[in-house]
């Protein structure tokens, strides 16, 4: 407990120290929010976010890396740090491509096939023929409603996230021999060979859920602090020291970041932060064997991604809106709630679900 608090303070001060420097560098490099490729600013009033530096997740990533590599580098922290690095790299690439990249169009599948048949260069024909499955895969995502922009396409993101999940699954399933999940009042539930699939699915879902929730100043960061803090309490009770210290590092970095992210934000975490923080949250829950509590403690994230999914399905079937807009925080924005009100209420909602999750844990041990 004492060590965890020390690490939180240390991590917070470190993040506070590097934040102004990173914000300055991002400004200079013009890594700033542009409106035309920002989904979260589709609501007119939010155009004021234009020009805010993104990729603020770097503050969190550097803090976690420095503190962990110097003070808490051990077999328990290898996998979380690898997950953090892969997800952050994916997010950073997406952020950078969204700002500096060119629009990448998806060639319709029938045109790809035709080109593979009629191209005048035979080498190109073979190359195009080899790429047919890839073209089909990209077209499926396009058909599912993923609008291809400048950044990394949804299908490509899912592949990298699957690899990230696969690494965690490989580590937990083969190295640590974990194939069960703990369920309150029930005990361990054997998933067997379905465990890797479950791990991959959870990591992809959580990563994207946090990404979707990161649409308002302070929203996802506040929720992340609550979720990580709850897992920290559980780790302290279970005396998982190394995990507790890593969680403390993350919380400290998030606290300092939130200072700069509160409305009007001086920096936004971008996909660099949101994708990595989501994947890491799921990884930590798996490492603590408390994955059952994740959808309860992190219910706001589940609600956010769930509302987007439901809206998509409902719109494609009935051609009507289920929510005024998805994810849910935009629904309330359209309903004329102020941004501050939405963020504060989501924080409260997150606190309540975290307490429920912790209570479930306490009464069942």
């Amino acid at each position: 407990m004492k060590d965890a608090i020390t690490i939180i303070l240390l991590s917070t001060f470190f993040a506070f120290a590097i934040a102004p420097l990173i914000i300055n560098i991002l400004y200079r490099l013009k890594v700033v929010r542009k409106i035309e490729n920002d989904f979260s600013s589709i609501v007119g009033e939010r155009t004021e976010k234009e020009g805010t530096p993104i990729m603020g997740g770097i503050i969190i990533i550097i803090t976690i890396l420095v503190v962990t590599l110097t003070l808490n580098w051990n077999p328990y922290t290898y996998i979380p740090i690898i997950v953090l690095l892969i997800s952050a790299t994916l997010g950073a690439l997406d952020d950078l491509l969204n700002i500096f990249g060119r629009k990448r169009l998806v060639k319709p599948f029938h045109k790809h096939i035709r080109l593979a048949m009629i191209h005048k260069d035979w080498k190109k024909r073979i190359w195009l023929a080899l790429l047919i499955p890839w073209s089909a895969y990209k077209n499926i995502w396009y058909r599912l409603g993923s609008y291809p922009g400048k950044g990394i396409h949804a299908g490509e993101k899912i592949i990298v996230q699957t690899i990230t999940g696969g690494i965690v699954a490989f580590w937990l399933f083969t190295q640590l021999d974990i194939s069960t999940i703990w369920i309150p009042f029930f005990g361990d539930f054997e998933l067997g060979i379905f465990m890797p699939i479950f791990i991959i699915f959870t990591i992809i879902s959580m990563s994207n859920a946090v990404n979707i929730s990161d649409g308002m100043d302070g929203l996802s960061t506040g929720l992340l602090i609550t979720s990580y803090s709850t897992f920290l309490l559980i780790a302290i009770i279970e005396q998982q020291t190394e995990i507790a210290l890593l969680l403390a590092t993350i919380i400290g970095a998030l606290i300092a970041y939130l200072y700069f992210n509160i409305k009007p934000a001086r920096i936004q975490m971008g996909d660099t932060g949101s994708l990595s923080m989501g994947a890491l949250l799921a990884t930590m829950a798996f490492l603590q064997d408390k994955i059952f509590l994740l959808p309860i403690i992190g219910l706001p994230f589940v609600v956010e991604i769930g509302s987007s999914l439901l809206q998509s399905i409902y719109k494609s079937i009935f051609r009507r809106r289920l929510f005024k807009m998805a994810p849910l925080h935009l629904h309330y924005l359209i309903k004329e709630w102020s941004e501050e009100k939405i963020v504060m209420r989501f924080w409260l909602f997150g606190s309540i679900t975290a307490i429920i999750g912790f209570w479930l844990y306490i009464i069942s041990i």
Partner: protein
Amino acid sequence: MKKLPKEVTELIDNYFNLNINGKKVKTPYHINVKHIRAGLRSLVGKGTPQEIEEEVNIFAKLRNFNLKKATKDEIRQFMQKEGIGIDCSGLVTHILNTWLKSEKMENLESSINFPKLSLFKKIIVKLRPIENIGANLLTNQENSTPVKVENAQIGDLIRLKGIKQGHHIAIITNVSEKEIQYVHSTRHYGQDNGIRRGEIQILDKNKGLEHQNWLEKDEKGVCWTLKQYMKEKEDNGLRRPKFFIKEK
């Protein structure tokens, strides 16, 4: 003589008086000319008044359009620019659907004879009936029978099969000895497009609609509805939906 059910009168009134930020705005015309697939029904000319109102509010937020300051005309222009409105068959389909539901607790799609459909199309029609019922389907031989002007009654449809513009449809809302009143949503009449009421003065009961006096005119005195009617007058005219005949 048939009467318009209260629910239908309210529906028509709602299309005439959309409540947009406290202002009463007449629904403009919009048709899915680009044949956008997977579009919301309120954005392809098939929404209910409530759906249209909601969409206007959402788009106003998205585009930073100040509904409070805007006049009714500006709101209508904004709606047309964003493709929010109602087309002719969308209006009539909602009216008939509401009518059937209010009287027989039945849906319009279950009372309509669709041409032979594949299983996939059948599912689509079941899920999105309003988008899949057009002016031609409502007034074709399978779903309606021709009616003479002397026998016109409320709920009859006016088939207006223009050649270039495609099909058009209007629904009769009132009939008296001397005139027929109808409601439709039209692309014509300039800025005054969209949902409109029209009147046909009956000059000779024994003759077709083209021989009657159509009173709906623009500022230059042109009746666009009659013009459209005249393009294929042999195939146009009054039609009574078969589900209203079965009712008797």
